[in-house]
Structures are given as C-alpha cells and as structure tokens.
C-alpha cells in the first residue's frame, strides 16, 4: 500500500501545483478569442536571393519586431512560421490598415544627386507633378479644392508630349500620368550615393507656420560624411538632392551655395515632403525599424472583433462543460463506483490540461479548445477499456482487488497503441499546420499524453483508495448493469 500512497501524494501535489500555476499564470487566449488582427507576411525572394535563408528570415523578423513596437500595440507578437513566413499578431487591433501599411513596405531610403544637365526637364516635371496632384485632389474631393488652371496643365502636357485619350476616365488617366511622371523624375537622379542603412534615428516635427510635418533623420559617422559629400557636390548648382523611399521620390531639395565648401555637416537632415501627422509618424516608425532586407507581401489577414471573440469564448466554454458533464453522467450510469472514480480522474485531467496550457504556454484558439473537448472523450476511452476488462475478470470469479489490477495491466497495451496512433496524427498535423491547425494539434497531443497518465495512474490510485473502505468493496458496485450471464 505504501507505493499507492506515494502515488496519491504525487497526484495531490500535482493537483495543488496545477491550481497554483493557474492562479499565477493566466491562460493566453488566441486572437479569435480575444479579438484582434493576425497578419501573415510572405517574404519574397528578390534579386540574386532565390531561397530565404534562416538568417534572412530572422533579419526580416527583427525589423518587423521593431516596427511593431513602434506601432505601440500592447502584447503584440512577431513569430516566424515555416521557411518564409512571418506571423504578426496584434491583439485589440480591429482595423489593420495602418499596421499593414507600416509593416508591408520595405522602407528602403536612398539619397541621390540629380544628374547634371537635366535641370530644365526636372523643372517641367516637378511643375507637372504638382499640378497633377492638385488636380487629382480636386477631382477626388480630398484636397483643399484649390481650383487648378486646366489650361496650364494642358499646355504642360503638350510641351512634355503626353497625350490624354478620351477613352478611360480622366481621374484614372491623371493617376497614370502622375505615376509615369514620378518614374521620370526618379530616372533623372544618379544611382544612390548612400542608403538608409546609415541611419541611427528618426523623428518627426511639425513644420513652422504649416500644417505639414517633416521627418528628421540622424546619420551615423559614415552616413554623416556621405551626406556632407553629397550635398557639397550639388551645392550652389540647380541640381536637386532626391530622397527616395522604395524607389519613389518623397523629397527633392536644392542645396544653397553656402554649403559648397564643406557640404551639410552635423549628421542630421530632414525630409520635408508634404506629410500629414500620421504619415510622418508611420515613416518615422519604418525608418527607426530599418529597411526590410527583402520585400514582403501580406498573404493572410484575419481580423476578429472583440465581441465576436467573447462570443467564441462563451460558446466553447459551454460546449466544454457540457461535454464533460455528459461524459461524466455516461460513466456513472454505466460503471457506478468505478465510473465515479473515472469522473474524478477526468476532473483532474481537465485541471492538469489547463495547467500545462499555462505552463508551456499554449495559446488557446477556437480549434484548440475543440481539441481539448475531443480529448475529454478520448481520455475516458482508456477507463472504459480498463473497466470492461475488470468486469470480465470479476465475472470469471476473481477477487475484486485482483480483477482491478488485472484490468489495468491487461488493458494497457491496447490503450497505449491507440494513444500512439492519435499522437502520430497530431505530429503530422503540427508539422503541416500553421496557426489554427497547430493549435488543435498541440492541445489534442497534450490531452492524449495527459490522459495516459490520468487513466493509468490517477484512476488506479483513486480506485485503490476507494477499495480500502470495506463498505465499498462490493462487486455489485462494479458490475453495474444487472444483466449478467
């Protein structure tokens, strides 16, 4: 009996430990239960890189992590998934538009000088660009509705040899021309003198006497020197300094003649595009996080509102409790006293399961809870095999103690086999799975492993404990159903 008492002590200790764990460590709920957004970003091979190396994957993850921190979403997580995917979870975020914008762009900053001898073309293109932007604003009704002189736009289009056909809508054509204009502006700049890798910090401030914001930059030593050299080379000329973001010119500025001797020194600069407060903030976050080493694409977006999440929690909780209650009633009706013991073991099983979820930690998702609920049914399967076997032994006229013991030991091999095959499926699922699928596989696997322990150890120990009371040591409590041969 001492061995059995040892087991009893262990089970009690585990139960108390589980309660303590659950009191101190909260269960982490997945986004489908608490509401929020999950974005999956696929890293795309670019240039010479055909396959995403693990180091590149980590590098992209680091950048995204810094950007996510910059977004200021509490408890956000960034994890890698597979060889080329990154999953960003943003609890509480319902409208992922801003996050998608900030996370999905490469944010490659380039500093370029204008090519010599292109001054005239540049002036024309810049004027066209401003007129186009104003006109598009006017047509979409988002701008300040400053009326644009159509004549000057038309003249300019004519001199630059750009035609407007009557077929497509005016707005679409203007947008296409603007895109082309931007491309032409970029082509007037020399290859980048240096890039955003030399940035050590970024900030933002509102421009004086203006609604617009500017983004301030600070370079490291090399970047500072490069910036000074670049500005020196074009100071006093009519050539412009272009700052490009992902191949798009976001700022063009001339450098005054006073910088002709040393360039702009001090390792600081600012981008004075016409930024809104929000645009400036997003660019700051992106620049602080650094450029992504490889371009990414958002391939999956799951957003769940918080009330829907709460509803999911309520539904699955009801289903779980009802599942346990139904199984409990079934066991007591079929097996009487051992059935009652099995229900106790089942409660311990549920408790241990939750504690393991909190310890690992397993993030509970809706399919995850389904896995748990399903494992409840499978957990009692083991008890059924054991008790059926015990009944058989009793019917053969064996003593109660012996029948129970033989029941446990003889049922073991088929219980073990059945659990292993389920675990094999779980392993295949976890290996295949991303996100939701893996959540199910993990909870089912934890459940199956724990059920081996509770069915074989807890039920057995508790049953022995029950048998130590002579009043309960009556075969009819075990045989249950009255129709015996």
């Amino acid at each position, binding site marked *: 009996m001492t061995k059995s008492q040892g087991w009893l002590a262990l089970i009690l200790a585990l139960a108390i430990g589980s309660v303590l764990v659950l009191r101190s460590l909260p269960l982490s709920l997945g986004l489908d239960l608490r*509401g929020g957004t999950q*974005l999956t970003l*696929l890293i795309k091979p670019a240039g010479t890189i055909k396959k995403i190396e693990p180091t590149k994957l980590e590098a992209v993850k680091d950048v995204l992590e810094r950007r996510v921190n910059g977004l200021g979403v509490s408890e956000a997580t960034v994890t890698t998934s597979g060889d080329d995917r990154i999953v960003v979870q943003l609890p509480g975020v*319902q*409208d*992922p*538009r801003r996050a*998608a*914008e900030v996370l999905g762009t490469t944010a490659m900053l380039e500093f370029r000088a204008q090519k010599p001898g292109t001054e005239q073309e540049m002036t024309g293109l810049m004027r066209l660009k401003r007129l186009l932007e104003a006109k598009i604003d006017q047509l979409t009704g988002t701008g300040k509705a400053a009326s644009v002189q159509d004549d000057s736009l038309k003249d300019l289009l004519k001199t630059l040899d750009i035609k407007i056909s009557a077929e497509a809508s005016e707005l679409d054509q203007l947008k296409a021309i603007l895109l082309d204009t931007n491309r032409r502006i970029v082509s007037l700049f020399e290859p980048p003198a240096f890039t955003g890798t030399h940035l050590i910090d970024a900030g933002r401030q509102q421009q004086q006497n203006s609604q617009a914001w500017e983004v301030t930059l600070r370079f490291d030593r090399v970047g500072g020197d490069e910036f000074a050299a670049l500005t020196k080379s074009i100071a006093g000329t009519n050539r412009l300094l272009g700052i490009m973001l992902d191949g798009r010119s976001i700022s063009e500025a001339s450098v005054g003649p006073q910088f002709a001797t040393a360039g702009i020194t001090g390792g600081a600069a600012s981008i004075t595009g016409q930024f809104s407060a929000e645009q400036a903030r997003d660019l700051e976050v992106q620049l602080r996080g650094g450029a992504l080493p490889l371009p990414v*694409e*958002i*391939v*999956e*977006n*799951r*957003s769940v*509102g918080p009330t*829907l999440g709460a*509803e*999911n929690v309520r*539904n*699955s909780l009801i*289903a*779980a409790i*009802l*599942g346990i209650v*139904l199984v409990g009633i079934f*066991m007591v009706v079929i097996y009487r006293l051992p059935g009652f013991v099995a229900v106790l073991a089942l409660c311990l099983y549920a408790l241990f399961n939750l504690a393991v979820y909190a310890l690992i930690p397993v993030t509970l998702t809706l*399919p995850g809870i*389904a896995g748990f*609920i*399903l494992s409840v*049914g*499978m957990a009692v*399967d083991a008890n*059924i*095999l054991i008790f059926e076997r015990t009944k*058989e032994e009793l*019917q*053969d*006229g*064996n003593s109660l103690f012996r029948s129970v013991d*033989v029941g446990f*030991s*003889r049922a073991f*091999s088929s219980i073990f*086999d*059945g659990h*292993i*095959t*389920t675990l*094999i*499926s*779980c392993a*295949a*699922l976890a290996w*295949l*799975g991303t996100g939701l*699928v893996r959540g*199910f596989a993990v909870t089912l696997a934890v459940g199956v492993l724990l059920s081996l322990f509770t069915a074989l150890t807890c039920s057995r120990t508790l049953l022995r404990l029950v048998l130590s009371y002579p009043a309960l040591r009556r075969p009819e409590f075990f045989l249950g159903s009255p129709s015996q041969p």
Partner: protein
Amino acid sequence: MTSSSGALLREPSFRINRYRRFCMVLTVFLLFISLLGLMLSWLSPIHAPLRPGLDFTGGTLIQVERICSPACKSFSTEELRKDLPSGAVVQSLDSGKAISVRTAALSPAESGAVVESLDRLLGPIQASGTQINTIGPLLGSQLLRSSLLALIVSFAGIAIYISLRYARLYAAMALMCLTHDVILTTGLFAWLGLLAGVEVDSLFVVALLTIAGYSVNDTVVIFDRIREQQQVLPNLSVEDQVDRAVAGTLKRSFYTITSTILPIIALILFGGESLYWFAVALLVGVLIGGWSSIGLIPPLLPLLGGKLPNRVSANTAELQA
C-alpha cells in the same frame, strides 16, 4: 500469462462472420455512394471532389453585424454590389442581422474600404463584431499540398507503427480501414457540398487527420484481443478467432465511441458557427471509424489472412508486466 482466461474461453454470443455478406454489401454500397458524390462534385460546376472553401481558393470574407434597432433597414443586394469590388458575393445571415461579403483576395486597405462602404450603405454596423479573413491565393494551393502530404505521412506513420507492434497484415488492414473512413467522410461532404453548399476548409483536413488517428483505436483493440486469444486458444480457426475477438470487444467499442461522440455533440450544439461543420465531420468520422473496425475489417480478415500471423512480440509482454 497470469490472467485467467475464462472470458476468452466463453462461446461468443455474437458472430460477425455470420453477417459477412451483409457487411460487404453495405460497405460496397457506402463506398459507391461516396465515390459517386466525389465524382458528381467533380463534374458539377464546383469542378473539384469537394467544394473548396476560402482556405483553399484564396479570397476575402468579410462579415459585419448590423445594429438593428428597432428593425433592420432593408437593402437591395444590387445596390450594394455597385459599391463593392467586382465579383463580390453578398449573403445575408441571421435574417439580415449580419452580412457576409466574399470577394477575391483584398489588401487590408481594400477590406477596410469594404467595411466602410457596408457601414455607409447598411449601417450602422457594430464595429466590434466585424470579422475579416483574407487568404492569399498562393497560400491556398500550398495548404492543399501540405494537407495531402500530412494525410499521407500520418497514414504511413500509423501503418509502420502497427506493423512493428503487430504484423504486416494488420498494418495493411488498418490502412484499408483508414482509407475507407476518409473516403466515406469526404464522400458525405461532397454530397453536402453539392446539395447544401457546404464548403471544406483547413479544419476539415484537421478533422480527417484526427479521424485517422482515432479510428484505428477500436481496430487496435480487436487486434490486441486476437493476439491475446491466440496464446490461450491457438487451435481455433481464423473465423472463430475473429468472431470471439469482436464479440468480446463489441461492448467496449460501443462505449468508447459513445464517450467520444458525447463531447462532439456538445460541440455541434454549442460550439458556435465556426466549429459546426468541423464537429459534424468529427462526429461522422468517429461513427464511420467505429463501423469499419467492426463491420469492415473483421469480416475481411478470414478471407485475406488464411491464417493469422501468430506473432507474440516480446515488447507486448514487457508492456503488460
């Protein structure tokens, strides 16, 4: 062996092999119906054995809840479509209280715009009840590939395990049993897809794999019983062995199936919309798995085996010690 063998010696009260013809006819019939469903689905406009859901085709599904007080504003789907991306399919759920819109895959900015136009046209909508799911088309085809791969891997894993623990014949039987279960479950969902528009998503694959892992349980119990009997009664015919094993384990198989489907029924009743078809697939799969372990494999064993492999592996004895 320390155990008494009285239970094993008793005459079986039920002989499955007496119903062999019935079992076989039923199996062939069920397989035929299932394959017919898969084929009809392929020939129908669905053009696939099962009606693929968002997870496989890629696309965006947006669902919003309307605030309906005192009553929901009526709206025309035609009007709505004008403001939505082309090809959008609008569905009214819960008698107009919720609206779902399905389109090709949208960027987060585009989905946000759809939610805004829904708010404008049908509003007000409950912001906290909005659900957006976007799956890129690339992901869908990847999922299909990895699902099939996972299914094959888990089948192979289970077959290898059983051939190590029992014998190759049993492994082949278990594999047959798994294939049968998967065909019948997918067949049912092919019919559901044809007749009721039910789609399969990644959770359906999860259900199939779970069924595969679980349905072997009952079969293994019977194998285990046969192995045990062979030690006590080595001279019985194969048919007799199988009959005894089935009769001896019938009740426990019935009970374990019941105890497994009880929580699944709770899930069907209360688990909510997103788990409904998943739970139905599990329920069906467990029932089919139960049937195949009693009505498919045992009647086949005497026909195929001639003699059962009499292998009492050492590890079994260890496990029982």
